[in-house]
C-alpha cells in the first residue's frame, strides 16, 4: 500500500526549499555589485528585482512551512524531493534577470539557458551575446559555478541547522563519495578547492588573454568567466563565437588543462592536496579516463583525416583534440561553428564525439554522463562473469579495483552502476527520438540529445531559438535529469504518485 505524504512532509520540504532559495537569492548580490562597478543601471534593476523576488519567495516559504525545531527532521525522501525541486526553482529564478535583460526572445528561452547554466551544459539560446552587459555575463557564468559545485552544497556549507538527511541532499545532486567523514567538511573542502583553483585558473586565463592582445580589465573579467565555465565543465563563454573568438592557441591550451582538471573527481583533488600522489596513477577511474581519451582521439583523428579537411598535425590537434577533450569532459567549449560539424567533420569523427560525450568524466566531478568509474566497473563485471563461466562452479571470483584505496567489487555496486548506465542510454535515445520526430536527422538528434543529457553543450545547430517548444522542454528535462543522475527525480515522481494514489 502507498502512503499519501502528510502535510508535515510538505512543510519540511517547503521549509528547506525556502532556506535554499534564500541562499540562492543572496547570489544575485554579485552581479548587482558588478552592475554598479561597470555602471549598468538597467542590469542593476534586473538583478535587484530578482534578488528581492527570491528573498520574498524564500522567506514566504519558510514562514508558511514553519515547524517546531524538533519536527524539522529531514529524511531520505524529503532530501531527494528538496534537491529535485530546488533545481527547478533555481531555473526559474535564474531566468528572471536574463529575461528582463531583453537578450532572450521568451521566458522559455531564458529558462532553457538558466537550466543549461545550472546543469553546466552550455547550450545557448541567448540573442546578441556580444552586447550583453558585464553583470548578465557574470551571472551566466556564475550559475555554472554554483550548479557545478551543487546548489545544495552551498546550502550545506552555510546552513548549519540541517537536522538529519543532509547525506540525501548531498547524494541527490549526483555525488556519491564522502571525501571527508563529515559532510559539512566535505562541502567546505569542495568550495576551498574550487576557490583556490578559481584564483590560479583565472590568472592563467587572464594572462593568456592579455598576451592575445586584450585589455587587462576584460582579460581578467573574461578569464574569471571562462574559468568558472571550464572548471565546472559548463561551456558558456562571454562572446558568441565561444573560444574561437580569441584566435589564441594559449587560451585553448589553458582551457584544455582547466577542462581536464574539472573532470577529475574531488576525491582525486583531495589526494593531490593531502595524500599519496603516486596512488593516483593506480586509480581505476583515472586510468580508464586516459585510455578512453586516447582511443577516442584516434577515432576522431581517423575520421578527420578521412574527411581530408584538416591537413597539418597542428590543426588536427587544435581542432580534434580540443573538441574531443571538450566533449569527454562535458564542457562543450568549441572553436568551430556548430554548423561545421555537419559540413566539415566526417560522421566517424562525430561518432567519436558522441561516444566521448556519452561517457563523460570522473565520478564526483562536475561532469555529467555515465562517467569513467561506472564504465570501468561494467568492464570489470563483464570480465568477472566470463571468469565465472570459464571456471568450475566451486570457484569464487573476487574482483578488486583501486579507487583511492583497494576496494572489492560487490554485486550491489554493479547493480547500481548498471541501472544508472542503462538509464543514461535510455535518456540519450528518448531525446534523439524526439528530435527525429521533429524532422531532424538521426545523427544530429542523437548528438544534441547526448549533449543535453550528459550536460556537455556542443551542438550541431539544432539548438536555436526557432526550434520547437516541445524540443526545448525535452532538452530542459534531459539537462535536469542528467545533472541529478536520476535518483532525486525518480523520488520526486514517486512523491507525486503517492500524493495522488496514496491512502
Amino acid at each position, binding site marked *: 500500500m502507498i502512503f499519501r505524504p502528510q502535510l508535515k512532509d510538505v512543510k519540511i520540504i517547503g521549509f528547506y526549499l525556502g532556506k535554499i532559495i534564500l541562499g540562492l537569492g543572496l547570489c544575485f548580490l554579485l552581479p548587482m555589485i558588478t552592475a554598479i562597478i561597470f555602471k549598468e*543601471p538597467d542590469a542593476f*534593476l534586473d538583478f535587484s528585482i530578482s534578488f528581492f523576488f527570491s528573498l*520574498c519567495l524564500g522567506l514566504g516559504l519558510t514562514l508558511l512551512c514553519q515547524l517546531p525545531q524538533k519536527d524539522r527532521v529531514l529524511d531520505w525522501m524529503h532530501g531527494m524531493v528538496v534537491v529535485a525541486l530546488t533545481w527547478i526553482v533555481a531555473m526559474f529564478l535564474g531566468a528572471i534577470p536574463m529575461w528582463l535583460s531583453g537578450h532572450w526572445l521568451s521566458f522559455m528561452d531564458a529558462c532553457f539557458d538558466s537550466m543549461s547554466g545550472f546543469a553546466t551544459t552550455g547550450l545557448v539560446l541567448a540573442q546578441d551575446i556580444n552586447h550583453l552587459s558585464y553583470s548578465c555575463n557574470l551571472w551566466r557564468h556564475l550559475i555554472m559555478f554554483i550548479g557545478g559545485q551543487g546548489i545544495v552544497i552551498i546550502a550545506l556549507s552555510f546552513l548549519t541547522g540541517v537536522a538529519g538527511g543532509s547525506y540525501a541532499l548531498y547524494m541527490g545532486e549526483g555525488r556519491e563519495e564522502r571525501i571527508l567523514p563529515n559532510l559539512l567538511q566535505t562541502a567546505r573542502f569542495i568550495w576551498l578547492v574550487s576557490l583556490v583553483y578559481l584564483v590560479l585558473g583565472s590568472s592563467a586565463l587572464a594572462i593568456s588573454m592579455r598576451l592575445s592582445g586584450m585589455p587587462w580589465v576584460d582579460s581578467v573579467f573574461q578569464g574569471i568567466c571562462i574559468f568558472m565555465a571550464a572548471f565546472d565543465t559548463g561551456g558558456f563563454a562571454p562572446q558568441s563565437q565561444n573560444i574561437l573568438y580569441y584566435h589564441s592557441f594559449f587560451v585553448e591550451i589553458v582551457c584544455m588543462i582547466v577542462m581536464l582538471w574539472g573532470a577529475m573527481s574531488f576525491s582525486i583533488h583531495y589526494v593531490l592536496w593531502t595524500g599519496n600522489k603516486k596512488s593516483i596513477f593506480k586509480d581505476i577511474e583515472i586510468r580508464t579516463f586516459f585510455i578512453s581519451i586516447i582511443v577516442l582521439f584516434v577515432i576522431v583523428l581517423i575520421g578527420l583525416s578521412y574527411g581530408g579537411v584538416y591537413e597539418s598535425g597542428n590543426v588536427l590537434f587544435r581542432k580534434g583534440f580540443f573538441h574531443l577533450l571538450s566533449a569527454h569532459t562535458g564542457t562543450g567549449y568549441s572553436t568551430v561553428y556548430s554548423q561545421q560539424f555537419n*559540413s566539415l567533420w566526417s560522421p566517424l569523427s562525430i561518432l567519436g564525439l558522441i561516444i566521448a560525450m556519452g561517457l563523460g568524466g570522473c565520478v564526483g566531478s562536475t561532469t555529467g554522463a555515465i562517467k569513467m568509474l561506472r564504465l570501468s566497473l561494467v568492464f570489470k563485471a563483464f570480465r568477472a562473469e566470463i571468469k565465472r563461466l570459464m571456471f568450475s562452479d566451486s570457484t569464487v571470483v573476487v574482483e578488486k579495483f583501486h579507487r583511492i584505496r583497494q576496494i572489492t567489487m560487490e554485486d550491489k555496486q554493479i547493480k547500481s552502476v548498471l541501472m544508472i548506465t542503462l538509464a543514461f542510454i535510455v535518456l540519450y535515445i528518448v531525446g534523439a527520438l524526439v528530435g527525429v520526430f521533429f524532422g531532424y536527422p538521426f545523427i544530429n538528434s542523437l548528438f544534441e540529445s547526448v549533449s543535453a543529457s550528459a550536460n556537455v553543450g556542443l551542438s550541431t545547430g539544432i539548438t536555436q531559438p526557432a526550434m520547437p517548444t516541445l524540443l526545448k522542454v525535452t532538452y530542459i528535462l534531459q539537462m535536469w535529469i542528467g545533472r541529478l543522475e536520476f535518483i532525486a527525480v525518480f523520488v520526486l515522481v514517486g512523491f507525486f504518485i503517492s500524493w495522488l494514489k496514496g491512502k
Partner: protein
Amino acid sequence: MIRHLKFIAYSWIFLLIFSCFAFAQSIKIIDLVEGGRGYDGKEISVEGEVIGHLMKRGDFAWFNIDDQTSSIGIWADFDLAAKIKYLGRHAVRGDRVRIDGKFHSHCPMHGGDTDIHAHRIVIVKRGAPQILTYDNKKVNILIFLAGALLCLYIIKILKRQR
C-alpha cells in the same frame, strides 16, 4: 566603324560597372559558415559590426565582426585595422565595416580557424556609445517587492515574539 567602337566602349563600361557592383555585393557570414568549402580560398566581401576587441599580434591584428546572422574573425594588417574606432559591446554600437579579403573555412595558418584575411577595410557607418537608461516599470516592481519583503520580515519578527 564608329558604331562598332561605341558598342564596344558601352559594353566595356557596362561590364566594368557590373563587375564593381558584383564585388561590392556582401555575402552573409552564415552563408560562409554553412557553405564554407565552396567559398574556401576565394576573394569575398562581408559587412558587419566590429565586436569585442582589437587584438594586436605583432604587425597584425585580430578582430571579429557580426552581421546578425553570425560572427567571424578577421585577420588584418594592424595599420589597416587601426581606423576602427568603436568596438561593439554593451552600450556601444561598433563601427559597421565592409571587409574585402580571402576567406578560409579552415585556415592552415591559424590552427584551422574559420577566418578572413582582409585586404581592405571600409568604414560603412561609424559606431557610437549608447546612452544607458532604465525602465520606470522596473523601478515600480522593485519598490513593490522591497515593500513585500519588509512586510514578510515584520511578520517573521512578530511570529518569533509570539
